[in-house]
């Protein structure tokens, strides 16, 4: 054969190159496969969960929610109007939680009938109004008073040995207003004042007449929180309460007392509604949202008129702002776990 037509081997790949290239490709594929694993670890789920837990903690502790009086809403009809949950008393008072909001927040049910009741649906409502995000996070929120009785929790604890995002916050809880009213029962008194009138002047309760603005943490706030009046010092046995009426001024116009929440209740002892046989533990409770539902604002005056079977006092009406006070703020711990 002519040299001219002989096939040349110059352009062929060397065996070394082929082997080297193969090993490089294997190594490259190895690294590329592991790379995705590496990125997953960098964007580790613990970090993500910690961020969600932090955000949830901030919203609970530093935000009053949207609208800020969401805890007065009847969830059976106004569920969609509650856009965001928060426990703080106000935007300018971070770290101070309102007991009324805490009670409403932790009132939940996992049953399918929860939509029709005045309670939150667990976990759907909390995911929509508090946790946010598309991922269906699991969560456990707990709040515990330090040296107090109050203890609330929501959702199951994370499974054992399961990583979760965590945040703990120190907070103060603002308790509802109360008033202690001593009745004076003098059996020898010839007058017959069996009616006790309690005037609730909102303007004075809210210190609107004072030039110095009171810190909301110390505000007496019956429009947004429970308020109770403790009647004490009953000395004549068998003093019964025969009627309880509410009037709005000017007028006076008779107000409704609703058959169920929110209403005005007479408790003989805690958790025991009773009209008769008053004791020194008798409490009149204005449930949160009652005044709101009746259209009372912080400029109005209302009267609570109590009629007894025996003499109570000398007929002088009681001005509630002289008696109503707030218990001290209670320190507490809030924990959020997300996984």
């Amino acid at each position, binding site marked *: 054969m002519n040299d001219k037509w002989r096939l040349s*081997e110059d352009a*062929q790949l*060397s*065996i*070394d190159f082929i*082997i*080297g290239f193969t*090993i*490089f490709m*294997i*190594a490259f594929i*190895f*690294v590329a496969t*592991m*790379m995705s*694993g*590496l990125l997953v*670890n*960098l964007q*580790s789920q*613990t*970090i993500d969960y*910690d*961020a969600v837990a*932090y955000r949830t*903690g901030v919203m609970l*502790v530093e935000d009053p929610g949207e609208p800020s009086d969401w805890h007065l809403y009847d969830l059976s009809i106004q569920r969609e109007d509650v856009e965001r949950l928060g426990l703080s008393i106000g935007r300018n008072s971070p*770290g*101070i939680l309102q007991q009324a909001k805490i009670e409403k927040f932790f009132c939940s049910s996992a049953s399918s009938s929860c939509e029709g009741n005045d309670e939150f649906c667990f976990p759907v409502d909390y995911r929509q109004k508090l946790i946010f995000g598309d991922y269906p996070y699991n969560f456990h929120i*707990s*709040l*515990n008073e*330090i040296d107090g009785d109050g*203890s609330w*929790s929501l959702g199951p604890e994370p499974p054992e040995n399961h990583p979760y995002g*965590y*945040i*703990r*916050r*120190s*907070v*103060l809880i603002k308790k509802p207003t109360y008033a202690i009213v001593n009745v004076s029962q003098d059996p020898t008194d010839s007058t017959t004042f069996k009616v006790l009138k309690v005037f609730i002047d909102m303007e004075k309760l809210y210190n609107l007449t004072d030039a110095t603005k*009171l*810190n909301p*943490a*110390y505000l007496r706030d019956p429009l947004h929180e429970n308020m109770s009046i403790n009647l004490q010092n009953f000395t004549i046995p068998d003093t019964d309460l025969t009627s309880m009426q509410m009037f709005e001024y000017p007028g006076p116009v008779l107000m409704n007392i609703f058959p169920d929440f929110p209403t005005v209740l007479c408790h003989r002892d805690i958790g025991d509604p009773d009209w008769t046989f008053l004791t020194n533990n008798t409490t009149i409770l204005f449930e949160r949202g009652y005044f709101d539902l009746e259209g009372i604002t912080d400029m109005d005056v209302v009267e609570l008129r109590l009629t007894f079977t025996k003499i109570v006092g000398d007929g002088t009406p009681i001005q509630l702002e002289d008696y109503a006070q*707030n218990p*001290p*703020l209670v*320190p507490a*711990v*809030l*924990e959020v776990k997300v996984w």
Partner: protein
Amino acid sequence: MNDSGQLYTIEGVAAAIMMVITAYLVISSASIFTPQEKHVAQMQLEQLGHDALVVMDTPRENGMQSYLAEFISSYNATGFNQTYYTLVNQRTDGTFDTLKYNVTYYYWDGNDIKSEVLVPEDYYRENAVKVTQWAYVDSLDKVVLVEVLLWRD
């Protein structure tokens, strides 16, 4: 075909395998502890430490002195320590965390910035955060800067 100048294949294979093993070891060990995680842990400490100072600086009732002002004006280190310890360490299930801290406060005495150690605690270069809070101490008529160095034991 000319073989001169080519690498020995076995050597090449051995080197490649070593590279792959090294890469595997590095990747699998590097992702356990990342800077972001460290950051989250510190952020949690900072938040909690500051929360506790704010809680102590808020008077429990209107017109009352705050715990922070009260403890500083009477130099009540025990009282401060007990209150702060509970606030940063107590969990909601009643158990206690293992946070440690030392507390110093600074004030201007008219000529100089003075400092007083309120809670001493030995610090051995753990990952610590520093939180501060300005507080007005009524009875001393002074503004003090309370500084807490906080770490997890």
